[in-house]
């Protein structure tokens, strides 16, 4: 096991956290939608991709500065999420749980097809939100830890979003109402909470989170209709690892998966996904509700 000590652990973990932030943001959107609307969506990655294309159009065609394009894209995603809820999910949820899951898979396929039709399937470069030399941290005379500016931005954005959303769900009346709707829809209606509008908001915020992810992933992974494939799979794994009902769990799960990915990818690149999922299976065998999840008690 000599190789264990020769690995550049510090750097791998930093890379893993930067990568894991992207998984965490995507997982967060999935859990958010699941918690507020009771739908496990398989369209989160594609919502992110589509918003990234919108951002690309604003940046590249309309030549808007990055912050302006960023905000406009967020507004677009918020609306897109609300429309998805209003037009598709509200109807789909009248049926069984399976119906709504299938509808989200259909949504993913439609979004990929539309993006391909509008922007084409070629791989495009996406402008970096920040440029400049990477940060260097000297840990020993012979070793520096490297953090690119993009990774630093990704980390900072993830952290700020988590704190904002945490405060929103804990302290704001609308945030508390969103949690209430997820727990008991009928009781929420009896409190005068507009359940449909809250669900639309859940999808809107989820899609906006996806948009942030898309805009942060596109600079490294480039922009193309299937750009989120690998990230989305890892994000689902992260969401499940953390316990699908727990927002902090989604973050922990996403970050953990990023670190595993980074370490395993360094040692055995061809096995990194296999190793990540093997660990996922082991965790779920030991803790079926996930790391921070609560075992759900559903009344029949």
């Amino acid at each position, binding site marked *: 096991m000599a190789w264990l000590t020769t690995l550049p652990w510090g750097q791998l973990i930093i890379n893993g956290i930067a990568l894991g932030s992207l998984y965490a943001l995507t997982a967060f959107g999935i859990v958010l939608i699941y918690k507020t609307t009771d739908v496990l969506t398989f369209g989160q990655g594609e919502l992110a991709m589509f918003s990234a294309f919108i951002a690309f159009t604003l940046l590249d065609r309309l030549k808007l500065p990055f912050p302006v394009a960023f905000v406009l894209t967020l507004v677009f995603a918020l609306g897109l999420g609300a429309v998805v809820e209003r037009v598709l999910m509200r109807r789909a949820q009248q049926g069984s749980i399976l119906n709504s899951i299938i509808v989200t898979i259909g949504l993913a396929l439609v979004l990929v097809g539309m993006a391909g039709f509008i922007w084409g399937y070629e791989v495009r470069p996406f402008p970096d939100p920040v440029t400049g030399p990477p940060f260097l941290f000297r840990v020993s005379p012979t070793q520096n830890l490297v953090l690119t500016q993009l990774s630093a931005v990704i980390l900072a954005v993830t952290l700020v979003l988590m704190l904002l959303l945490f405060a929103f769900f804990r302290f704001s*009346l609308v945030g*508390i*109402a969103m*949690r*209430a709707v997820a*727990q*008991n829809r*009928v*009781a*929420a*209606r*009896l*409190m*005068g*909470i*507009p359940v449909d509008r809250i669900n639309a908001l859940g999808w809107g915020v989820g899609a906006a989170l996806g948009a942030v992810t898309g805009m942060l992933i596109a600079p490294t992974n480039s922009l193309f209709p299937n750009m989120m494939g690998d990230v989305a799979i890892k994000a689902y794994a992260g969401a499940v690892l953390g316990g699908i009902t727990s927002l902090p769990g989604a973050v922990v799960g996403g970050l953990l998966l990023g670190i595993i990915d980074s370490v395993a990818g360094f040692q055995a690149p061809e096995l990194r996904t296999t190793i990540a999922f093997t660990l996922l299976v082991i965790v779920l065998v030991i803790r079926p509700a996930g790391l921070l999840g*609560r075992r759900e008690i559903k009344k029949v």
Partner: protein
Amino acid sequence: MPPLLQLENVEAHYGRIRALKDVSLEAAEGSIVALLGANGAGKTTTLRVISGLLRPTAGAVKYAGQRVERLSAEALVRLGIAHVPEGRQIFPELTVGENLRLGAYTRRDRAGMEQDLQRVFALFPRLRERALQHGGTLSGGEQQMLAIGRALMTHPRLLLLDEPSLGLAPLLIQEIFRVIQEVRGQGATVLLVEQNVHMALSIADYGYVLETGRVMLSGAPDQLRANAEVQRSYLGA
């Protein structure tokens, strides 16, 4: 003065199954009206129609002088109808305080909300002690208190209670019934669905007996208690 609540020939369905056939009843402002009957008689359905959870297929619901049977549950909360559903239905993963705060979701009058919160804590001191605990960790009786307290936070003019005594120990049942009377004393009108017919008739001003989706009998508590049918079916005499 016309009654606060009036149901006229209400009919309601769950899918193809007719749950209410021809229900007419009324509740005068400031009264406690008991809704009695066996399981499946239509008591819960009647409450669901009044609070807007179920739209009637025929008939009229009049509340405070206007037709309301086509309004949404959200709109009816704003008009002052609060429904404490069967099985309490609190939000288990929200704290007691958050549960109560959601009761006032539709309100913007901060002073009134604070006053109602103090009123709820005065009625149920235990809720104040447990304000930071998750609703799901409360005992059954405390959850019932929370459900009623949460409904009172809407500042209701009409309070619908579905089986508030279900599964509670006798002492707790007495406490709940004391609160119901107190709430009425503060001006609210109460429509009470109960299996515990003795207790319900002891505080009610008027009662209706439902059977298979229609009103079989109605009258003052004394009249109902004296009725041979009621005695045989519900009072175990």
